[in-house]
């Protein structure tokens, strides 16, 4: 069914989408070619900003660090994620269902929280470090080194690789594997000669994705890179203000453009890979019941490795935070039972800005999440069953925010709210943060919605048209009711994502716009460790509630 393309509602939706995406982006772009902040009357076009950052050795060091970390993440996450996917989809590894849920937890915990967790658990005086020191006499690791950052980032991005490769393995028909068995290949050869090459496009896609996420990294390098002064592009941008002492918007914009210049091609590459991957596997097998590969005694080895990974990425940081939230101080020679306290939470709840942050975070996840899903649905429906013009425009539009890290999007929205007449009044309301969140997560939200829309056979809508329903009636009475569950699931997922988000709110943080994520960044900068621990734990609890509800309703935790 091809509905008429240029109806008023559809054009309105597309126009608004274009406006909220393109305005902040063009503002950043324009600002980067000015010699002063854009509201300064003395500004004029120049390459000063680029000249400055290209002359700054710190910039090149950050770029190098970003590349090293991103590459390290790929090297670590790719083999582990692929192996995990193989173990969970093709073998008789014990406790599969539990692992499948646990694997996704790192995706839903704020990287800021995770990073903080590693500091308090494994930093020089972390809980586990001191315990290890008691055992071997020295702390055998240093979480503040560049290599550690790459390892931690790599291990926490294993789920991303796992998701894509397990999806590819699941959609791989068992017949092509059986065919290889029949002509004489043993299970290992089947894995190496058939399964692996056939899922290679998905693996390559996941590798590009992880590399791309490496450039977006902010919380981890901000917290872990600080003590030894390791900067990456996003933290370099964040620290520019400190460096010069004055808000140097043009320099920040120039760095932002540099980051997007790297990430946007990566996004385009991902999109192209996704398309060719579908074409490549054009001969689809028929899915029959899969005979699981028996691991024999190896299954305990495999289980131990998976468990070790889960302990490192989930148990260590979260237990660290949980402990730190309930002690007044921590260091060498301190006995845990002497310092246990609830003081940290009392402090958080006695400060109005932190209470506001908690309330706002909750509201932005629940009400804001619902509103965001409504927006995503409007955009999804505008492109639903559309070919040509409108669909193409939407397709490329939503790619743009994907390439812009949350930190930059927040910065751009700050400028918009500060200087666009009529929006100033909204600057100090949570609306500004919500709008930025919604735009930053647009691509993710739309994938959820289009996933739900894809489930509807076109003939269900076509038959409604033939019995006499108008396009609008089909939408209201057939399409939307059919994706009800999908919308609910999207709401839950968006809730968790909004709870965990931190970087987008950093520049928007002000009185009235506090959210836990940006509050953590700010408190961390101020050295208020106690409150960071307490707020982190509250943040984890909020995500956990969302996760529990999602699991209760059987929501698939990935698209």
């Amino acid at each position, binding site marked *: 069914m091809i509905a008429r393309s240029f109806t008023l509602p559809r054009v309105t939706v597309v126009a608004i989408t274009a406006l909220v995406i393109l305005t902040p982006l063009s503002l950043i772009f324009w600002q980067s070619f000015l010699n002063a902040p854009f509201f300064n009357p003395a500004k004029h076009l120049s390459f000063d900003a680029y000249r400055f950052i290209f002359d700054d050795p710190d910039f090149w060091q950050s770029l190098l660090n970003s590349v090293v970390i991103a590459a390290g993440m790929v090297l670590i996450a790719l083999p582990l994620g692929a192996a995990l996917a193989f173990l969970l989809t093709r073998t008789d590894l014990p406790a599969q269902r539990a692992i499948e849920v646990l694997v996704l937890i790192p995706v839903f915990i704020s990287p800021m929280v995770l990073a903080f967790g590693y500091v308090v658990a494994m930093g020089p005086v972390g809980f586990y470090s001191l315990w290890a020191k008691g055992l071997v006499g020295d702390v055998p690791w240093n979480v503040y080194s560049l290599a550690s950052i790459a390892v931690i980032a790599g291990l926490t991005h294993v789920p991303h690789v796992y998701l894509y490769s397990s999806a590819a393995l699941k959609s791989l*028909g068992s*017949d*092509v594997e*059986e*065919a*290889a*068995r*029949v*002509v*004489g*290949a*043993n299970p290992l*050869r089947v894995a190496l*000669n*058939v399964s692996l*090459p*056939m899922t*290679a496009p998905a693996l390559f896609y996941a590798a590009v994705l992880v590399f791309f996420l490496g450039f977006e990294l902010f919380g981890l390098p901000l917290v872990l890179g600080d003590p030894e002064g390791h900067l990456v592009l996003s933290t370099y941008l964040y620290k520019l203000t400190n460096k010069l002492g004055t808000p140097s918007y043009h320099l920040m914009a120039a760095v932002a453009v540099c980051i997007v210049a790297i990430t946007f091609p990566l996004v385009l590459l991902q999109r192209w890979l996704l398309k060719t991957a579908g*074409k*490549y*596997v*054009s*001969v*689809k*097998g*028929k899915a029959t*019941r899969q*005979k699981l590969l028996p691991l024999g005694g190896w299954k305990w080895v495999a289980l131990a490795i998976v468990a070790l990974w889960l302990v490192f990425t989930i148990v260590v940081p979260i237990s660290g935070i949980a402990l730190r939230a309930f002690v007044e101080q921590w260091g060498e020679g301190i006995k845990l039972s002497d310092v246990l306290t609830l003081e940290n939470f009392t402090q958080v709840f006695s400060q109005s800005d932190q209470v506001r942050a908690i309330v706002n975070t909750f509201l932005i996840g629940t009400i804001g999440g619902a509103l965001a899903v409504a927006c995503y649905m409007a955009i999804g429906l505008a492109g639903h069953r559309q070919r040509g013009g409108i669909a193409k425009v939407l397709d490329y539009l939503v790619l743009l925010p994907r390439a812009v890290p949350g930190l930059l999007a927040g910065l751009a929205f700050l400028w918009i709210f500060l200087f666009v007449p009529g929006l100033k009044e909204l600057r100090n309301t949570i609306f500004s943060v919500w709008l930025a969140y919604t735009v930053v997560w647009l691509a993710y939200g739309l994938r959820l919605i289009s996933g739900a829309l894809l489930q509807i056979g076109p003939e269900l809508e076509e038959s409604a048209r033939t019995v006499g329903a108008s396009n609008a009636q089909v939408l209201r009475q057939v399409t939307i009711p059919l994706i009800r569950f999908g919308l609910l699931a999207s709401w839950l997922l968006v809730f968790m994502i909004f709870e965990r988000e931190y970087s987008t709110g950093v520049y928007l943080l002000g009185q009235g716009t506090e959210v836990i994520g940006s509050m953590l960044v700010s408190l961390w900068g101020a050295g208020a460790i106690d409150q960071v621990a307490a707020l982190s734990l509250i943040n984890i609890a909020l995500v956990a509630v969302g996760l529990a509800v999602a699991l209760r309703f059987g929501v698939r935790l990935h698209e």
Partner: protein
Amino acid sequence: MNKSATKPETTLAPNLATKPTDKLVVEDLHLQYGDNLILKGVSMTLNPGEVVALLGASGSGKTTLLRSVAGLEQPSRGKITIGGSMLFDSAAGIDMPVEKRNLGLVFQSYALWPHRTVFENVAYGLRLRNITAVEIDQRVTQALNNLGLGALAQRLPHQLSGGQQQRVAIARALVYNPPVVLMDEPLSNLDAKLREEARAWLRELIVRLHISALVVTHDQTEAMAMSDKILLLNFGKIEQQGTPEDMYNRPQTQFTAEFMGSNNHLPGKVAQVAEGRALLAGDGWRLWGAARGPLAVGDSATGVIRLERTRIASGAGADCVKAELVTGMFLGDRKENLFKLGDLRLRCYGSVPAGSPECFLELPPGDLWVFPGNAAL
């Protein structure tokens, strides 16, 4: 898909494969998924050089039987042997891994590896057998030429038509000379028109290369055309087995009669029994037929006759019923007529004398099978 797809461009070289000498024997095979019994004791034999068709509706267990022979399913009881080698024996705890069984299997979906060229798809089985590159090249080329695929060796599967993919799948299963080739619905993925040509081509290939094959199909015409022997499966049990002629002309059960062809049905009561014949009586008709199964006077029974054995008679006669013409359907090569006899509907081929709404239909006693019961299968 072009029509020439299934027509090999080269003629088949006779007797390329070594003549098979191994016999496939399946004994009392049982298989279940949980409480769901799929195979309930199936035994069969496939002699060297023979083609056996496993025929049945979906859910009859035919594909499961084939996959059990291949080793892709695990039976709970029974025995499978080929020649001297034991593939499966539940009593002895033997279950030879799939890759060691050395069988050829043509999948319904063809299951070609999309990342390998046609040549590499076919060569893979030989590479796994550590055959020298020179010999691989020679044997694959020969196999491809045999199947009329010589020019397509460097293509990728998605660049081929459905018919060509099917032939690659067959070449891949034949190239290492397995003692038995298993084919799972080999023609069902082809267009209806193409299927008939492919059927003749496949039969020719099997005969020329002296292949022993076990073929699964749900289409009785396909089974009859391609095989020397048919095994009709019904819910995990063998309903009847025999040559295609046997199965079509001498069905022992109504199920077989129904499955193998198109029939008219006449439910009635047995009025008389004599020397293997039974007189069946219904509302306004009485007909003699061949008794199939135990029948006594007064029993409910169903008369079954093939459509093509039901004839339009020129006038009243002993084995005739008078029926009213409802409508005629032109099928191209012939005409099918629908008649009404009380509540019954009878169909037959041929031309109806013009101008007469009523007709006499002849149902010869030798062609009318009388089965016990009134079950409409």
